[in-house]
């Protein structure tokens, strides 16, 4: 028994569509027990009329011709549910956005509405009650990446009582933020605000911290991920190491200083930086003498804790998680190959902004005194070049790094604070200072700190009498300018961190053209990845400054908490389902599924069949088309339903059939 209700939507619909006529036509359609025209179906009285008809006429399915289903489908489903019907026994007919609002001829519009009504009535006959599926979820979250995004997400999730495993590939958490000196626009010390959070992660009873570790492989699906975590060999027993640094002091092998962005040098066995969490040493075999043919065992001999174990092997841990947060952050763009006119790295006094942070930082290689790398002299003239590898179509990088303008302004300010008689110049494209208090800060950099801003790109950097000449255009003055600099700082753009693409593949999520992981919806689902149960936090989704990263990570954490709090997941029932008796076991569905939602199963007689994991399936229906015997079909959009729509909407074809195709 089908109930048909047509909405007048005041005059929005009834001005063009004769709703009474459509209702009368519907009343004559097979299975329709009641057909009514209602002034506003979505209003309380309107919904009451529908509910009454459902109960009174024992309706088992309902067609509502009104606005777009994108508008009110959810409303009417709830109405059906309240009236005791399965909410999926509803079919809507879009006669407002796609009919009354776009046609002026009343008879044409009415005929179209009638055609659409007939199609909906035919379709609803094939509807079956659908039940939201519930699956148990593992109450543990994985956070990949230990920068500020991962830290924030982990702390928020852990605070809700949900256990978290944090995986960080480097020896310490802290990420890029730990390398920054001060933060804009408040100029508070980056590590001072970050360090307590790092320590909290380490000490939190709900957080398991795995450094020197990477995600090897991901299986399973939302609520039930199985993740292999590879723990790299560092030759140091984490349980024993006390962080005394004796090994680092005595180690004879020099090694590049990753934390200081290549400035200065470190040792083969070292603690990443003084505030590292966990404060344990790790040994880099590629630089260690012992692993390069020498007999050196100095660190093992000297370690008071006996923590050095040269034979330590890599291990793979398998853990189960209900949800995964990717917080892999960013890397600075490697500018050298794309900007040959900036010297391709041959001038030591052309540094990147991250290197400059280390020169500014008290924990950096110069102890917080700005010294240029070539000769250790204190620079007087410092030139900042914005947008190196950002907003530059000529090197194929149109994107904005979103933080360059502000960190450059900050670095210019700090330059004057460190060296009062210095002069900072900034070549900029546009000042993008959209955040709270950002514009005021950037303005202060000019007014109070005397930074000279020059609008234009730098064409060349070349040496002249021991200085570097920065040659560029001042597009406001319309002139070429040359500035003799002691030190040049390139504000390099941001890339997704190395390996993010590979991780995205493991997580079955997409990356955009710039390599950043793609959120499910740019406005409404900014932290959800396209794979259920996977969330994005921070700059892995796109360049972000610290406040935005923290907010984004908090949002991701809230989604994880929301998902795992109930212990079970409710999946939309509008997913694919397999009729096993029709399945030929060819698994073409499995091949095309973008979400890995189809698994291989065996019937008791040994016959292989496809099975849909309801909580992973997103309901796109690609499999439905790929299945030759039509065994797999998408609930709510089955072949039967769609064929019924086609057949009915084209009836009656008397009078206008022009094509006779079989």
């Amino acid at each position: 028994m089908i109930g048909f209700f047509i909405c007048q939507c005041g005059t929005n619909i009834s001005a063009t569509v004769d709703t009474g006529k459509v209702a009368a036509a519907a009343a004559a359609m097979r299975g329709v027990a009641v057909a009514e025209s209602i002034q506003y179906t979505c209003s309380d009285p309107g919904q009451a009329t529908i509910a009454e008809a459902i109960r009174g006429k024992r309706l088992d399915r309902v067609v509502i011709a009104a606005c777009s289903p994108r508008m009110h489908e959810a409303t009417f489903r709830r109405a059906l549910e309240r009236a005791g019907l399965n909410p999926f026994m509803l079919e809507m007919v879009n006669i407002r956005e796609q009919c009354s609002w776009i046609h002026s001829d009343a008879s044409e519009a009415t005929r179209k509405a009638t055609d659409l009504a007939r199609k909906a009535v035919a379709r609803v006959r094939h509807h079956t009650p659908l039940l939201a599926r519930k699956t148990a979820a593992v109450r543990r979250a994985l956070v990949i990446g230990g920068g500020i995004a991962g830290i924030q997400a982990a702390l928020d999730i852990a605070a809700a009582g949900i256990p978290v495993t944090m995986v960080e590939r480097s020896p310490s958490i802290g990420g890029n933020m730990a390398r920054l000196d001060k933060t804009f626009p408040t100029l508070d010390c980056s590590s001072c605000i970050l360090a307590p959070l790092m320590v909290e992660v380490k000490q939190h009873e709900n957080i398991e911290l795995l450094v020197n570790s990477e995600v090897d492989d991901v299986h399973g699906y939302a609520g039930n991920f199985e993740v292999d975590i590879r723990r790299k060999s560092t030759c140091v027993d984490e349980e024993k190491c006390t962080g005394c640094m004796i090994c680092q002091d005595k180690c004879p092998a020099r090694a590049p200083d990753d934390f200081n962005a290549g400035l200065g040098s470190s040792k083969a066995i070292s603690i990443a930086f003084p505030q590292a969490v966990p404060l344990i040493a790790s040994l880099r075999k590629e630089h260690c003498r012992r692993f390069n043919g020498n007999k050196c065992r100095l660190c093992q001999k000297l370690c008071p804790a006996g923590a050095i174990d040269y034979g330590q092997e890599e291990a793979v841990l398998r853990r189960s998680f209900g949800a995964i947060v990717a917080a892999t952050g960013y890397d600075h763009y490697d500018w050298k190959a794309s900007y040959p006119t900036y010297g391709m790295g041959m001038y030591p006094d052309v540094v990147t902004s991250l290197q400059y942070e280390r020169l500014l930082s008290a924990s950096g290689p110069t102890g917080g005194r700005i010294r240029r790398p070539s000769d250790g002299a204190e620079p007087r003239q410092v030139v900042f070049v914005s947008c190196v590898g950002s907003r530059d179509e000529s090197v194929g990088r149109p994107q904005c790094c979103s933080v360059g303008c502000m960190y450059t302004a900050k670095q210019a300010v700090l330059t004057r604070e460190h060296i009062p008689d210095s002069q900072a110049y900034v070549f900029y494209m546009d000042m993008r200072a959209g955040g709270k208090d950002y514009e005021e800060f950037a303005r202060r950099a000019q007014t109070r700190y005397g930074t000279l801003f020059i609008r234009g790109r730098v064409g060349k950097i070349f040496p002249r009498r021991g200085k570097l000449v920065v040659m560029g255009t001042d597009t406001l003055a319309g002139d070429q300018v040359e500035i003799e600099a002691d030190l040049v700082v390139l504000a390099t753009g941001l890339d997704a961190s190395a390996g993010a693409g590979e991780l995205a593949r493991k997580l079955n999520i997409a990356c955009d053209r710039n390599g950043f992981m793609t959120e499910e919806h740019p406005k409404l689902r900014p932290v959800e990845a396209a794979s259920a149960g996977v969330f994005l936090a921070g700059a892995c989704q796109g360049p972000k400054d610290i406040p935005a990263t923290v907010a984004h990570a908090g949002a991701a954490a809230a989604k994880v908490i929301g998902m795992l709090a109930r212990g079970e997941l409710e999946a939309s029932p509008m997913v694919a389902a397999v009729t096993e008796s029709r399945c030929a076991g060819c698994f073409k569905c499995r091949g095309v599924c973008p979400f890995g939602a189809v698994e291989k199963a065996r019937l008791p007689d040994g016959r292989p069949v496809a099975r849909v994991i309801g909580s992973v399936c997103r309901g796109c229906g690609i499999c439905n088309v790929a299945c030759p015997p039509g065994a797999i079909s998408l609930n709510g959009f089955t072949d039967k339903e769609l064929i019924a729509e086609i057949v009915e909407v084209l009836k009656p074809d008397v009078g206008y059939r022009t094509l006779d195709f079989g």
Partner: protein
Amino acid sequence: MSVYSYFPGCSLKSGATEYDRSFRLVADCFGIGLDELEDWNCCGASPAPHHWGGDLGILLPARNLHIAGASHDGIVAPCAGCFNRLKYAQHELSRNDDLRRRTGQALGQPVHYQTDVLNLVQLLNREIDPEDLARRARGRLSGMTLGTYYGCVLVRPPQIVRYDDPANPVKMEPLLKAAGATIPYFPFKTECCGSYMGLARKEIVLRASRRIIEVALECGVDALVTVCPLCYQNLDLRQRQINDVYGTDYHLPVLYLTQALGLALGFSPEELGIEAHAVNRPPSAL
């Protein structure tokens, strides 16, 4: 043996005869056949066609392409400006049916424009095996630091010229390295020399060329190497004017690529016409 149609253009027949001479010497050394284009005309780079407007800027080079036809392995224009005009005309003809038709009308027959247009660097890289060059080099460039100066129209606009990296061209380097020279990174290798502004606004040329020389010296260069007669003119012939205006004392030799290679191959500065240059004090190592 490969044979190329040779388009000398006005420069190599007048102000840059030493370029023509040295090119023929080097080509001969490596068995590169040069067949001077019969009845060639202006490449179209002179101001006249541009001021007259219309199709002249295309018709002139198109006629040269047409004469070259498919007779040889391609057409070589050592002057960077000539090369650029030929290449530009070819590009326009290939994508503009109407222009092609008009050109055909002007020529009295359908225009043949598909011949391979090569610049000098391209030709030498194609025909000279660096190992062979290294074997034959007499060591006269060893110990010399040469600044490779490409100028503008040899590599730009990149979508038309399609040769070398427009921001950091490097194609001269393998030849000169094989010939024994040291090539430092020279950041001004494509910086503007002032071009034809020498006629109307001399001060612009002096300023631009001065900076090129200044940076070259900063980079420890003994001589600059170019393939463009106009660049040569601004950098060499005007060096004294630069010295006069700026009070500098520059004596930086500027060589055509073929002169530099000629030196390496054992030709004398006289044979190569280097003595005719304004800065003819030979680089110390000669």
